[in-house]
Structures are given as structure tokens and as C-alpha cells.
């Protein structure tokens, strides 16, 4: 099929689709300005009337649009306020004041020293707390005797259950009902629970109230805790009844302990707020659409133009490659906001080659190198003319012959062009295979369409037309619609700021990529040191329990069981026969050779019985055949042998 035929087919397809589509097709520049005006009316975007101030650098770059947008006085006023003051001549004394370069280095060192001091201020209490956990608390001379039993390490914790606030509430209820003893105990429990939670002490069932007081690391809470403990001890061990006044005092102390942390946090928050750290609520909050450099209006315009606009929702590096003939949604990447890493660029290039439609906006230096695009700056004024695509030729299949008629147009454009105006002349040098779809008045290309494999790339020199201020300028909406019609898709997926980073292959690589490599290394070293220190303590040699020696009888039984498992009863019988044979022959009188008869005479047993048993044993010794009587024979032979040898005693 020739390119002309494919173009015709595409036109017919577009016409067919158009006939079955709603009355208004997608990307119609004629309606673009009306859509923008309607969106502005309906959504009342504040970027024009009351933009967020101070204006961001991106918004300030768009200030030239302010005067051209109707009813945009707020933006113009904000631009006037944000205009940098004209450089004034330096004061007379500045000429005489020379700051030597080494002063900067000194200032840096001082800053680092301050940072180190702050870190030290945080770490020292933590380390002291850790050390206090592992050592006996320093005691007053009066309490020296107490260390006699506290030298050993403390036991595992048994932290009381229940929330301290609940305990406090229950204690107050009990006190109101007159159950003073129970109330007192709950006040103490609430205080201990709160201090335990705060890390000021450790609750354990073997610790006395006095130990809690002495171990309390919270210097402020300690006197209050001592008061409560004194009252509890007086009631419990002193045999005295609690008084309402004393319980009330203890309750006050408990409340002070329990609520000390929240109050401190509140004070810190207030302090932070007053210093501006946490004072966000005092500043003016951001509203949707209040940034002239934002993209809300452009997205709304595209929706009103019939496009399906969505966020990408995944990493660009993990876009699935489109299969042959598949019309995957176009992906819009603004490289000014979405930085692309090498893996992502590589994948995007492969994705386009496989048939994807990619819209790239912004500096071409951040685009994939394979596209061969570069910057060219246009001359003022930056008026823009964009062509609207009506139909594009279906790309040739890999097995279709090239007919050599490539000089034919590959796309059909609308007869008229759309005009807009920008504040920056960021043009592009179009690669040889590319086709310009928008240009400045001086002829500098602003956007081009570049076929790449089965897909194509729509490159745009800047993202200005996607900004609120840019699109609100009369004429620019139609230019944007005409421009994006070249993507040849009505479904657009906009990449987010983080989508240009390929997903990490492992948690470690994610940490490294996040710049936490050094922290991870420090953590690993710390973990190793901890492991070694704890391991060293745990590997202290301890004498193991002595191995119990097995009795000889147990050994014999074990050997017998081994023979039985190995079905080696004939072997056992043969071995015993050999053993008995050696010892009996040593005792036989010179000249005699019949062991069985000698055995019978020594054991005082019938000769035939002895001969039968001995013959069976000798047979087992010779052939080892299993007959099933081996153990019986062995037992009887053992008895005979024992009787025979008893003669020696």
C-alpha cells in the first residue's frame, strides 16, 4: 500500500468515526476560546483575580501575558509587586567594605559547629538515658546501702497496661465516690504509666516505689512522684487511712505528671509557630488554580475539547510497550517539571518505536538523544502559527515494500492555521525526518512531529501553552488545541513530577538514589557494632553440663539394638562363638579338641544340649544365614559359658 493510499484510508476512517461521533469532534480550535471563557466563568480560577503571592519564578516569567488577558488585573498587580527593584548603586560605605574570602569559609565552619552542637544536644540525653539503663543510678549518700542489691542488671519490663488518661479519669471518679485507697493507687499507676511511656522510668513488678522515684529521669516530675509515693506508702504500709485532702493533692501531682508531655508539646508547637517553623496556618493557604504557572485551565480546556485527560499514574520507565496496531493513549511529558533519568529516556524511545505517541514539552536538552532535537531562539515578537492535524497516514508495516513515493504528504492538515502569542521564543531545530507543525513568525519552528519507528513524537519548544496564564491569553487556546491535535490521540496521559524516575530495582538502590547511601552505611556500621558488642557478651564461654557417661550395660544394649536393626543376629552369635571358643580352648586340657564336650563338663550340662548349641553357633560363624533362632541360641550359650567360666572363680 502506498503512503497516499494509507492516508486515504486514515481519512476515510476519520470521516467514518466522525459520522458516528457526537456532533462536536475532539480538538476543534474554533471552540477553544469559548471553552476557556466558560471554564474561567465556571471555575473562577483565582490566578487572574487574586494569584498566590509571592509569585513563583515560573509565574513571574508569564507576567507579559497579564496585560493581554481580559479581567486579569490581580495578576498584573501581582506582577508589578513582584518586579525586581531597579538596581541601585551600592552605598558609599560598601565600596570601602571588603569582605575577605576566608570569612565565608569561617562562617561555614561556624554553621557546622552550631549544627554539631545541636546534634550533640539531642544525642547526649539519649546516650545518657541509654547508659542509665545499663548502670546503677547514682545515689545520694543516704541511699548507698540500696546499691547492695541493685548492682545486678534490671529485669525485663512488665509495663502496666492501660492508658494513663483513662487511669487518671478512673482515679478521679473513684475519688469523687469516696473510694480513696483505690483512687490513690490509680493516681500512682497513671503517673508511672505516663513516665514509663515518656522513657523517664521503667515499670517492673519487682521495683519498689522508692526505686521508681530514684530512677525517674524526669527531674521535673520526680518531686511530684515522690509526693504521690509517700502518700501511697503511708496508706499501704503505714496503716493510715487516706484523707480526701491528701488524695486530692496526689491527684493534682498525677495530673501534672501525666499531662506534662502534652503541655510541653503544645508549648513547643506554639514556639515553633511563633518562630515560623510551624506557623503555616498563619500564612495564606493555597487554592486550586491560584498559580498563573499552574495547569488547571489547560486541562479543563482539553476536557472540554473532548479529550480524555488523566494522570499517568505510573513510572514512565514502566510503560508497557504497545503491541502492533494498538493505539495507546498519548503520553504528555513536560520536561520542565518531570526530570527524566537515563533509563526512562531509553524506555520512552523504545516505547515510541513500538508505536507510542509521545508529546514532549520543554528544553530539548532533556529529551532522548535519539530524537536529535536542539534549541533555536526565535526573534521577537513571539507570535505563533500552529497547524491542526485532520488525519495522519497509517505507518507502513515492517513487511510492506517501500514504494519510493515518500515525497507525498504523510498527514492532512486543516486549511486554516491557529495563531497565538508567547512570552518566550523557545524554538526548536527540527531533525531532518521531522515535520514542523508550529512556527514563530520569523520562521523558527516551535513544534514538530517526528516519526520514530511505528510511533511518533510531538516535540514542543516550551510548556507555556499549558500554563493558566499562557492559555488564558486570547488565541493561545486555539493554538494549543491545534498543536495537540498532532498527537493524533484523544486520550492524553500527563506525566507527574516523579514519573520520570525509573523505579528502583531494590530497596537499597532506592535509598541510594534518595541520597541516603551514607546514612545507610552509617546505620550498617552501627548495626554491626551493636551486633558485635551484644554478640561478644552473649558468646562469653559458659561451662556446659557434663556429658553423662553410659554404663557398660547400656553400651551392650545399644550394640545389640544396632545388630537387631542391621538384621545381623547371626553375626552376633558368630562373634560370641568366636569369643567363647578362644577362651574355652585356652582352658581345655592338652590333647582334647571337642569344645562342646569340654563346655558340657565345665557347665555340668548334658553333652547333647551343648553339642547342639555349639554346632549352631559354629554354623552362624561360618555362613551367617538367618534362621530366626539366633537370639535364643545366643542367650542359652551365654548362660552355658557363664556357668563354665564360673569354675575358675
Amino acid at each position, binding site marked *: 500500500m502506498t503512503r497516499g493510499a494509507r492516508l486515504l484510508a486514515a481519512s476515510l476512517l476519520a470521516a467514518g468515526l466522525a459520522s458516528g461521533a457526537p456532533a462536536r469532534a475532539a480538538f476543534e480550535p474554533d471552540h477553544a476560546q469559548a471553552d476557556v471563557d466558560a471554564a474561567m466563568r465556571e471555575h473562577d480560577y483565582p490566578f487572574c483575580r487574586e494569584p498566590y503571592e509571592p509569585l513563583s519564578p515560573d509565574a513571574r516569567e508569564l507576567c507579559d501575558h497579564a496585560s493581554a488577558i481580559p479581567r486579569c488585573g490581580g495578576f498584573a498587580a501581582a506582577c508589578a509587586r513582584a518586579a525586581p527593584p531597579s538596581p541601585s548603586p551600592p552605598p558609599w560605605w560598601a565600596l570601602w567594605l571588603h569582605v575577605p574570602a576566608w570569612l565565608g569559609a569561617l562562617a561555614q565552619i561556624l554553621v557546622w559547629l552550631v549544627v554539631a552542637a545541636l546534634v550533640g544536644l539531642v544525642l547526649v540525653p539519649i546516650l545518657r538515658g541509654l547508659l542509665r539503663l545499663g548502670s546503677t543510678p547514682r545515689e545520694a*549518700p*543516704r*541511699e*548507698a*546501702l*540500696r*546499691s*547492695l*542489691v*541493685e*548492682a*545486678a542488671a*534490671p*529485669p525485663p519490663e512488665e509495663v502496666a497496661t492501660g492508658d494513663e488518661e483513662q487511669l487518671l479519669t478512673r482515679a478521679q471518679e473513684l475519688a469523687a465516690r469516696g473510694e480513696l*485507697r*483505690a483512687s*490513690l*493507687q*490509680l493516681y*500512682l*499507676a497513671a503517673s508511672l504509666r505516663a513516665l514509663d511511656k515518656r522513657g523517664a522510668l521503667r515499670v517492673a*513488678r*519487682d*521495683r*519498689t*516505689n*522508692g*526505686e521508681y522515684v530514684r530512677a525517674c529521669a524526669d527531674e521535673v516530675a520526680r518531686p511530684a512522684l515522690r509526693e504521690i509515693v509517700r502518700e*501511697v*506508702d*503511708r*496508706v*499501704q*504500709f*503505714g*496503716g493510715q487511712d487516706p484523707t480526701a485532702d491528701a488524695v486530692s493533692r496526689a491527684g493534682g501531682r498525677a495530673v501534672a505528671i501525666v499531662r506534662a508531655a502534652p503541655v510541653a508539646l503544645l508549648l513547643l508547637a506554639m514556639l515553633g509557630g511563633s518562630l515560623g517553623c510551624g506557623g503555616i496556618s498563619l500564612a495564606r493557604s493555597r487554592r486550586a488554580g491560584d498559580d498563573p504557572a499552574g495547569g488547571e485551565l489547560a486541562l479543563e480546556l482539553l476536557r472540554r475539547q473532548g479529550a480524555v485527560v488523566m494522570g499517568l499514574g505510573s513510572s514512565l520507565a514502566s510503560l508497557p510497550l504497545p503491541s502492533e496496531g494498538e493505539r495507546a493513549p498519548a503520553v504528555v511529558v513536560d520536561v520542565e517539571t518531570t526530570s527524566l533519568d537515563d533509563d526512562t529516556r531509553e524506555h520512552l524511545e523504545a516505547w515510541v518505536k513500538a508505536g507510542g505517541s509521545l508529546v514532549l514539552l520543554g528544553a530539548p536538552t532533556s529529551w532522548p538523544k535519539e530524537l536529535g532535537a536542539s534549541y533555536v531562539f526565535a526573534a521577537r515578537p513571539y507570535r505563533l502559527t500552529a497547524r491542526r492535524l485532520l488525519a495522519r497516514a497509517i505507518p507502513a508495516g515492517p513487511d510492506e515494500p517501500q514504494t519510493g513515493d515518500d515525497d507525498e504528504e504523510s498527514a492532512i492538515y486543516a486549511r486554516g492555521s491557529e495563531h497565538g502569542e508567547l512570552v518566550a521564543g523557545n524554538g526548536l531545530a527540527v531533525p531532518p525526518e521531522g515535520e514542523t507543525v508550529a512556527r514563530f513568525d520569523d520562521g523558527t519552528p516551535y513544534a514538530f512531529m517526528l516519526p520514530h519507528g511505528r510511533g511518533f513524537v510531538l516535540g514542543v519548544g516550551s510548556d507555556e501553552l499549558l500554563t493558566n496564564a499562557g492559555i488564558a491569553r486570547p488565541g493561545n487556546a486555539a493554538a494549543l488545541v491545534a498543536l495537540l491535535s498532532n498527537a493524533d490521540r484523544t486520550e492524553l496521559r500527563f506525566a507527574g513530577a516523579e514519573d520520570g524516575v525509573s523505579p528502583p530495582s531494590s530497596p537499597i538502590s532506592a535509598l541510594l538514589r534518595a541520597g541516603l547511601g551514607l546514612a545507610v552505611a552509617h546505620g550498617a556500621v552501627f548495626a554491626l557494632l551493636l551486633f558485635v558488642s551484644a554478640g561478644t557478651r552473649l558468646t562469653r564461654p*559458659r*561451662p556446659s553440663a557434663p556429658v553423662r557417661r553410659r554404663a557398660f550395660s547400656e553400651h551392650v544394649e545399644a550394640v545389640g539394638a544396632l545388630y537387631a536393626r542391621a538384621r545381623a543376629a547371626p553375626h552376633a552369635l558368630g562373634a560370641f562363638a568366636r569369643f567363647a571358643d578362644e577362651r574355652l580352648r585356652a582352658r581345655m586340657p592338652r590333647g582334647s579338641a571337642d569344645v562342646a564336650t569340654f563346655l558340657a563338663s565345665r557347665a555340668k550340662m548334658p553333652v547333647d544340649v551343648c553339642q547342639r548349641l555349639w554346632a549352631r553357633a559354629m554354623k552362624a560363624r561360618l555362613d551367617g544365614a538367618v534362621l530366626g533362632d539366633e537370639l535364643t541360641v545366643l542367650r542359652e550359650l551365654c548362660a552355658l559359658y557363664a556357668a563354665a567360666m564360673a569354675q575358675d572363680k
Partner: protein
Amino acid sequence: MDVTLFQQTFDRTRQQMARVVVGQQELVDGLIVAAVARGHVLVEGAPGLGKTLVARAFAVASGCAFKRIQFTPDLMPSDITGSSVYSRETGAFTFMPGPIFAQLLLADEINRAPAKTQSALLEAMQDHQVTVDGTSRPLPGPFVVVATQNPVESQGTYPLPEAQLDRFLFKLTVGDPPAEVERTIVRHHADGFDPTDLSALQAVTSPQEILAMQRLAASVRVDDAVIAYLVELVRRTRDDKAIELGASPRASVALLKAAQVLAASEGRTFVTPDDVKPMIAAVLRHRVLLHPDAQLQGISADERIAEIVRAVPVPRLAA
């Protein structure tokens, strides 16, 4: 005497002793507590750690009569108790009291004397009297024996029998002082301190006051929960697998008495578990006999006692 006066006297004695004794606070406190609890102290430590100085300082500060016996293998019981001597002039036997007739007796290196001689102390320590030639003679009150022994040298020593050990209220171990304390000790000597001359000390209490303190301590209230707690602690020593012979009921009583003194020294008229816990090791460490396997494994009595203390819950006020 009331509890406040008790506390003041206790503190005064401590402060007075601290004028000549640097460090060794456990030993000082243990000695005062034992004296008020009508107990005796066995001190174990290497030579040169101030054991004798502490005993002498207490004797001066409390106004008690002090005697010292150096225990040797050839020391005879009569060398301690005294004996009857024939008088030519009167033609009768006259009792010559031995050094045991003192209020604070320092039995130095008690394990150097054979068991027979050590036993001469048994009646004195238990009943505060001495029987010689069939006549019982009471000892002056208060009567406190401070016995020392060296843990390192074992040659030529006679370990104290269990019955004798049980008579001691506390066994206090004296370790090397920290460097800072040692520097202070040396500085004192460099400034002219003479440990044999304790004239700088003055008596801040009297034997009568100590007797009054003993009576007051005995009246300090002990709740049933505390008694149950300390009894449980002692009983656990009998069930512990690493301990061959646990502490006797006498240990429970000793623990109680020591806790009462400690409570009064804090100005309280009742005992809390907080008064019991600090005394446990000192009261029990010489009363438990470790299993040989545990000894071979290097487990000490203090370690086992600490384990037991950790295992026994402290009594709490029922909510």
C-alpha cells in the same frame, strides 16, 4: 526518743564517721544499721581498705568501748572470754575479763583461728553474755562484733561454720575504692591525717542513745504485706536450684530488723519494701550455700539473690 531524733542521731553518726572515713559508705551505713538492729557484721575485704578504721571511728563517734582481737591459729577461747586466775593473796580464783567485754569488738581476721576459738564468740553474739567456769557474765550493751576476713588468702585459715555465719546480721564486702576516692584518701594522708589518732572525732551519741534507738527500731510498724514479701524472698533461696542450703528463718528475722532500722533512719514509723530490698544481699549472701556446680560455673551468691529479688513481685496497694 522519737523517729525524728532517731533520724538525726543516725545522720549525725554517719557525718561524724565521714570526717575520717573516705568512701566506704556501704560499710559505714551497714555498721550503724547493724549496731542499732542488735546485730553483728562480717566484713570481707582485702587488707588496707579501711575496715579497722571504720570500726574504730564508729566506736569513737558512738562513745562505745572498743577492743580489738587479732585472731591467730594459736588463739585460745580463754584469750577472748577471759579466765579465772588464782590469787596468792586471797587464795581464791579471780575472773580476769577478756577483750570480749567491750561494746564494739573488732575480731580481725576471724578465720585465722580454729573453730574452737571461733565458737567462743557464739554465746556472746547470740545471747550477749559469756559463760566461764560455769558462771554467765553479761556483756555491756550495746554489743557489736565486727569480724573481718580476707577473701584472698586461704592457706592456714578456718572457714567459719554455717552456725557461726548465721549469727552475723550482715556480711559486707569491701571493694577497691574508685580512683577519685583513693586520691582523696592519699590527699588526707598528705595533709597529715594519722589513722591511729582519731582525736579529731567526737562522740555524737552514746551507748544509752544507741540502746534507745534499738528500742525504737523494734517498734517500727511492719505491714503484713511487707512481712509476706520478705519471707517470700527468704523462702525462695530454699527453692533455688543453684543454692544447696537456703537461708534460715533467722535470716527473715534479720531482714526484718534491718528494714526497721532503715525505715526509722528515713524518719518513718513504718517499713516499706523499699527498706527491705537494700538489705537483702547483705543479710542473705553469707547465709546461702551455693551448689558446687553453681560455684564451678562462677555464679556468686549475690547474683542468685539478685535473681530472686527480680522474681518476687513487690506488694502493691490493692486498687
